[in-house]
């Protein structure tokens, strides 16, 4: 979940080659739920690796 | 700049204070006489929290030079209660819940008191009652409970037999 205090998530998202803040702002400046979809893809990929 | 001796009567008592002529009536009442019932809520003669009655007429004591009240009779909220007995409008405020935080209440009571005394028994319209407290801001009550209290007194509901 996005939100302040998510330093760990933030770092992890950056490490996946995405800009946390860009995703964050895309979520409210663009229609739909794109950022969360990107995020869930990243998480799924990460889980597959495990 | 020279100070002046000011003599005035507040709530029936003679006072003598030594003040700069620029001193406001509100400052004499609160700071020199220690009558802190009278409040202050703005610097623009807008809120009416400092309302007191001079010669029975309501004024905003933050917009009156104290020295202009030389020899005049001033009434503050502390002067409404006589020997522990509350005035009609004070009792009406209690019954109608006409106050919340209470900071505007002294000013409201003084405006109401002056208005009611000027009525000389005449029954005011609701519009007249609302205009009588037009110079007083209340942020808590929405005024209607105050209007009800003034009306109740004007209707004679608090007359002593």
């Amino acid at each position, binding site marked *: *979940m*996005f*939100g*302040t*205090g998510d330093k760990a998530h933030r770092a992890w998202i950056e490490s996946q080659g995405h800009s946390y803040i860009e995703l*964050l*702002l895309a*979520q*409210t400046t663009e229609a739909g*739920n794109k950022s969360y979809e990107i995020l869930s893809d990243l998480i799924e990929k990460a889980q597959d690796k495990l | 700049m020279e100070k002046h001796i000011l003599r005035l009567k507040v709530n029936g008592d003679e006072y003598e204070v030594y003040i700069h002529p620029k001193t406001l009536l509100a400052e004499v009442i609160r700071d020199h006489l*220690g*009558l*802190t*019932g*009278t*409040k*202050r*809520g*703005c*610097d*623009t003669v*807008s*809120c009416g*929290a400092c309302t007191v009655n001079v010669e029975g007429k309501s004024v905003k004591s933050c917009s009156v030079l104290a020295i202009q009240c030389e020899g005049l009779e001033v009434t*503050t*909220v*502390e002067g*409404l209660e006589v020997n522990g007995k*509350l005035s009609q409008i*004070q009792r009406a*405020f*209690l*019954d*109608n*819940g006409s*106050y*919340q*935080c*209470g*900071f*505007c*209440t002294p000013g409201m*009571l003084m405006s109401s008191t002056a208005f009611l005394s000027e009525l000389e028994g005449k029954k005011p319209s609701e*519009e007249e*009652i*609302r*205009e009588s*407290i*037009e110079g*007083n*801001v209340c*942020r*808590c*009550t*929405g*005024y*209607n*409970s*105050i*209007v009800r209290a003034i009306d109740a007194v004007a209707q004679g509901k608090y007359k002593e037999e």
Partner: protein
Amino acid sequence: MSHAKYSVINTPVHNIDGIAKVTGRATYTFDVTLPGMLHGKILRSPHPHAKIINIDATRAMELSGVKIVVTGKDTLGIKQGIWRRYEELCDEQVLPLEKVRYIGEPVAAVAAITEEIAEAALDLIDVEYEVLPAVYEPLEAIKKEAPTIHEGVERNVNVTRHIEWGDVDEAFEEADYIREDWFKCSGQAHMCMETRAAVSSFTPEGKLTCWASTQSAYYTQGLLAGVLGLREGDVRVLAPYVGGGFGGKFELDAAMFCSAVMSMKLHKPVKVIFTREEDFIASKRRTPMFYYVRTGMKKDGTFCARESRMFSNGGAYTGMGATALYLSGFFHSFPYKWRGYRYDGYRVYTNTLPSTSMRGFGAPQAMFCSEQQIDWMCADLGLDPFEVRRKNGHTEGYEVPGQAFIASCGLEQCINEIEKWVKAKGKMPPNRGIGISSCGFMSGGIFNWFDSPYSFSSAVVTINVDGTVELHVGCQDIGQGSNTTMAIIAAETLGVKMEDIKVHSGDTTHCPADLGAWGSRQTLMAGNAVKMACEDAKKQLLEFAYAEMGINIVYDLDIKDRWVHIVARPERGLDYFELVKKVLRAKDGQRVVGRGYYTPHRKGMISPAYSYMMQAVDAEIDPETGRIKIHEVMTAHDCGQPINPLGLIGQLEGAASMALGYAYLEDMPFEDGKLMNPNLVDYKVIKAPEMPPTGIIEIDTYEPEGPYGAKEAGEGLTNPTAAALGNAVYNALGIQMKELPITPERILKALREKKEQEAQK
């Protein structure tokens, strides 16, 4: 659960502080004078964004009568905030060290033997600034090229909040009609009649006493201790009478902080009172919000989904804004059932006056957008707005997915009552219309961002030998009458009369900790604590009464109107005062003490209970000048069991005046970061002639979690009004007002645009 017959609850009583307030005896922080007291004044930034290069107080110190000048360098420089649990949200140094972030921000404070000398000294403090580029609007502040207001905060995004349930996109697909709108909600000043005020007295034994105009003596104690490096127990906060709060007085303010810092250095009492202008430019405000609202509805009026995005102007610091961001998004879904709901809220830093909580806590903005759009959609689809609201409204037992459980809900009755009232009014004359709006609100928040280790509310009740009762509560009376409400609950529970109860509050030394007056929490939370404490004390009395009366243990005993008796045989009993005397003797002379506390558990994420209401506003507009006249406001209201009927009416009428002001009069326009109306001449608060008659229809419900079935009453009533007025204007003139406040000029502009559109057709 059925209603018991109450002897005190819901009967008209005078507020217990009434006499003090109508005779001028009530002493506010504004009135406090201590021996040897000095007067403090605050130097404020003229720049919206600037580095502080140097502050030179030499000339000020030379002025006779000046005792001290302090700057950030004289403080511990601790960044503080009321979201104590989250370090990065503690972003405000009350006296900043490096830079200022809004016009009016404190940069230095001075104490002198008179207020006049202190004020004169301000002009003699030389501050060297390096002015930085500034940004004032959230949608500007998130741009790449925007200046950084807080180092390390990317794109000035302060807090974000995402709320989502159901499959939103799927739910939208089921909609026959989808509508999108943008709304702009303005800020609003709390405009408490008593400006921010504090008197601090630090003594050599290391103890600080602070009289403060605060909504929570406990928060003030904790925050002061934090920034001053003192133990909480060494800070005593006194708040006997508070001249209004409305959400603006439970953070640490510059009056508290600067008076305390100077008093600690001088070991003398220091008083700091904000001028009205300071109160306007530097004491935070209602959060301005931009709302994008997309709602999907079926032809028959069934709600499918809502997707909303909100940008709020956070101003320079966090304050309570983080909470407003969450609550706005949550109540934006209220009071309806959505298959899919998604909210993304963004709080953005700007170089303006910080925004924070204010009566309604983000909900009035949310409702202004939601309730107007619903009416417009009903009109677009030819549906009845009452019917649609009934169809989709919350009901008892409903669970807001993953968020909240609704144990009591009188929404449908509210809608029915207002519908009756509106229909009875019949057809409106030209240029006059009635608008409706429904909403709900919380009864206290289940948030502990302050990270308090104490129960949310606590109470201690002590019964003296003569039967009089000392009730110690931490909840704060700021004029809403909580002390009276607590006394009523205590008298009802103990079975005594109001005049037997003495309430002690607003003193952190003698009263138990309590989160204080915010989020409509006190009636439910403090009320439960008081009820528990009184039941504890009562139990001790009744245990003795059993023995004393030597009755069969199957009997129930109770106390009512000072008569201790067998419930089944009310005539058999003994006098309360006699019983108390005996109990004391039996307890080796100890007074009877009862303790109570309340912390919500297993009640979801937001609040233990929710109030519901529908409001109708009858307004007339002069189509040539755009001037609005409000004829009447009628509200149907479910607040559970009313405790203090007189107080309830006062809350309704007060909320209406404040919310009407927000709807069509009050605004806080800034130019280059400067507030353009920081005085009561240019800032328009409703006065008696503008105030319409207001009526209330009480809807009877029982809230199992509330004391005697009570829940919130007063704050939530601020929520529906702006929307209801907007809908009234729509019904009167057919124009859609998407910006607050609804001014004459905006009305005429909308009318012109409407004419043009009709001409094109």
